[in-house]
């Protein structure tokens, strides 16, 4: 399935997604209370050590983390302006560490495995129909390429007709086609026996 997971057999790959998620949450909580830039630098180093440990390709991991670097390039100086440089450094390191850990989580966990975990957790919630939630999640994954294609077609058609920059000229046909698609899926689900 589409996603960022990199196949592998490391400890992190084999760990149950629920357990891994709990560890990630615990780590982020600890990060939130650490104040000392040195401690946070150590935390970042440890997090980065997970990348080779899980045999994750460096470039793909970097791609997960770089967007936040751009944000930090602005946020760290702003923080230093309002506070002190050590505090600003601590903040930058904290966010970078959290994002790195989350990237490692995402890259060692298959989407399917997480979906199963989410559904298993939801089954324990009495007022949630886990089967239907599962159906909606799966149907959405199925629909993303369809809707992405619809949006692309409409944007291209707008360009081809030379109707320059009207956002409405995109939104109206996209919504009409989305509603038709939803109708068709509703009908298909009923026809396939999913009829309540």
């Amino acid at each position, binding site marked *: 399935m589409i996603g960022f997971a990199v196949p592998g057999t490391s400890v992190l790959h084999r760990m149950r997604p629920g357990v891994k998620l709990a560890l990630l949450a615990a780590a982020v909580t600890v990060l939130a209370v650490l104040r000392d830039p040195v401690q946070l630098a150590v935390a970042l180093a440890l997090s980065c050590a997970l990348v080779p440990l899980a045999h994750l390709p460096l470039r793909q991991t970097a791609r997960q983390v770089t967007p936040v670097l751009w944000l930090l390039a602005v946020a760290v100086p702003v923080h230093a302006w309002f506070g002190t440089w050590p505090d600003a450094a601590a903040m930058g390191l904290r966010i970078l560490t959290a994002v790195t850990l989350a990237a490692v989580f995402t890259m060692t966990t298959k989407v399917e495995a997480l979906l199963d975990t989410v559904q298993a957790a939801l089954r324990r919630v009495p007022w949630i129909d886990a089967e239907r939630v599962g159906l909606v999640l*799966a149907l959405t994954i199925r629909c993303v390429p369809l809707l992405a294609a619809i949006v692309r077609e409409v944007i291209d058609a707008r360009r081809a007709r030379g109707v320059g920059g009207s956002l409405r000229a995109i939104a109206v046909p996209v919504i009409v086609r989305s509603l038709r698609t939803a109708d*068709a899926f509703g009908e298909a689900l009923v026809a*396939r*026996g999913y009829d309540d």
Partner: protein
Amino acid sequence: MTEIVFEHVAHRYGDVPVLEDVSLRLAERRIGIVGANGSGKSTLARMVNGLVQPTSGRVLVDGLDVARRGREVRRRVGFVFTDPDNQIVMPTVREDVAFTLRRHRLPADQAAARVDDALETFGLSDLADRPAHKLSGGQKQLLALAAVLVARPAVLVADEPTTLLDARNARIVGEHLAALPQQLVMVTHHLDALADFDRVLVVDAGRIVADDAPAAALEAYREVVA
């Protein structure tokens, strides 16, 4: 054969009549439906499994009133739509076929065996773990067929199943349809596909204007379109 009966069926969307006073008894193995765009073919076909309800009259499948016993009827009547993209509801090929059996309460191994069997029949075994959106149009329609037939319905209703396909894929899907052991009710614009059907209905402006063996019915159809 399953017996499909229309008793004085009419349908209107708002105050626009779409079907008027249709009475039919369908019990042949191969039934074709032809007619111009907008003549009411899809409405007629959808009534067989209750996706559209008559505004007057009733439809019976093996004596079951479709309006009241829809779920039981849909167990007997499979439906294939024109656009497989709107019929495939799960991300991968195998998941989509398996989805149909979810509500059949089969033991897991039996369900898996039936899914494999259906994939095999439609030549999809090698594609089982592919994302559905990466299939070609023809493969998608074969997947839609596999996903319907895995439930082993007694009747298959197909609404222009080859209209969106190129000639080659239309032929492949057509051959699979022709080889089905099931009773088949098919709406189509591919008139050659109807040559060895048992019965062909011609729909025009919401009425059945011809109901005959293929040669005679298609003759009548050509007169209607002319």
